[in-house]
């Protein structure tokens, strides 16, 4: 069965390692924080200026001055710090953040990503996404494999305006875990009960299937 959003977040959480500083994008990536093992030390960075983000506050304890990049009220953990936007992006551009997890509308087989604009329909802006994808060496994209019309979002070439080029290394979807290298999607894992054929059908870009593809454990 294909994963739901929480399933995708659970699988991505397994990529988070001890000692990592992690930036989580809006949407599915935000859910990843809920599933990170509690026997490892991880700090979450939010580009609006906080390191050491904690869970949402209890009702009545919200502070308008403490929010995340999704403008949600949050708390901080012991050891947290606040900083200005320039310093925040120094952490990102300077490759001090170990892992970036973000959503996408399209990803292509050469690692391009599009997630900020649909010409004529939606223009919300790129926020920090262009800085993140241009700098991070370890980028995981969390997305649904196909759009609502059933069309593949893993393409040969992105059709939407790009956010970054040649930057995505790993994609976790509701159907599969894929690695991008040599301008191809390499199938690493299948969602429980999902066949290689189903994944092949849902992938427009070049899909490489080497040997037996294991099911994800989540």
């Amino acid at each position, binding site marked *: 069965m294909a994963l739901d959003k929480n399933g995708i977040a659970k699988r991505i959480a397994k990529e988070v390692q001890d000692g990592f500083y992690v930036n989580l994008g809006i949407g599915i990536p935000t859910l990843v924080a809920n599933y990170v093992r509690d026997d490892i030390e991880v700090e979450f960075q939010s580009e609006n200026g906080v390191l050491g983000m904690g869970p949402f*506050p209890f009702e009545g304890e919200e502070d308008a*001055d403490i929010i995340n990049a999704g403008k949600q*009220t949050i708390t901080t953990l012991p050891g947290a710090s606040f900083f200005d936007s320039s310093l925040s992006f120094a952490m990102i551009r300077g490759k001090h953040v170990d892992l970036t997890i973000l959503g996408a509308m399209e990803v292509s087989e050469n690692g391009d990503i599009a997630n900020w604009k649909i010409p004529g329909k939606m223009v919300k802006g790129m*926020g920090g996404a262009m800085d993140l994808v241009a700098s991070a060496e370890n980028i995981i994209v969390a997305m649904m494999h196909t759009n609502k019309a059933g069309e593949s979002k893993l393409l040969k070439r992105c059709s939407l305006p790009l956010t970054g*080029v040649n930057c995505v290394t790993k994609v976790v979807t509701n159907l599969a875990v894929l690695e991008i290298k040599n301008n191809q999607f390499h199938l690493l894992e299948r969602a429980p009960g999902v066949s290689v054929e189903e994944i092949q059908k849902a992938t427009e870009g070049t899909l490489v299937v080497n040997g037996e593809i294991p099911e994800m454990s989540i």
Partner: protein
Amino acid sequence: MINKEVKNVEEALKGVKSGMTLMLGGFGLCGIPENAISQLVKLEVKDVTCISNNAGVDDFGLGLLLQKKQIKKMISSYVGENDEFERQMLSGELEVELTPQGTLAEKCRAAQAGFPAFYTPAGFGTEVAEGKETREFDGKMYVLEPAFKADFAFVKAWKGDAAGNLIFKGTSRNFNPNMCGAATITVAEVEELVPIGTLDPNNVHIPGIFVQRIFQGKDYEKRIEQRTVRQKQ
């Protein structure tokens, strides 16, 4: 001590005219200069260019200026959550220059720090880099981005003193420190204007040299955009 204190918001915004370029601190509605924005509405200045990460919501923040059609151009990184903004942009009434968030912050900081421009990897290969100079360093491509030029910067701090020293709270810091000294005149509004000598010099985030005018703000609404809570077990 050089005294930067002005009596009120009217005095603080003296000299603001139609057609000017204004920087405004804040991320979403967090840390926005609420008093300065209200005064800009009252002054009825037109055709201003606003440099601000976001454009407020329909009825608060920069949304108030959008309602009155006072803004000619917005330079921002993210402009969701504002229907009037979207309407004006799609109809062509409003000019919009979308800029990656880190680039936006650095264009402020470059102006503050005296750099005319800088290279950043953000936006290379995208429409953001169109028409801009690009250059390779150590095998990676970068885009040349110029510093901002602005007439006024409006920032909001938690505490400040008459010398213009500022301390920010939580994530309301965001773009505010980067905009201090990045425009011809920087106006700081503070929740608490404390007596000179009260702020510990070790804990000052922005030294007064970057601020030309400071005033005690009032009636802060500090609206929360996305109230998210968890239940007590």
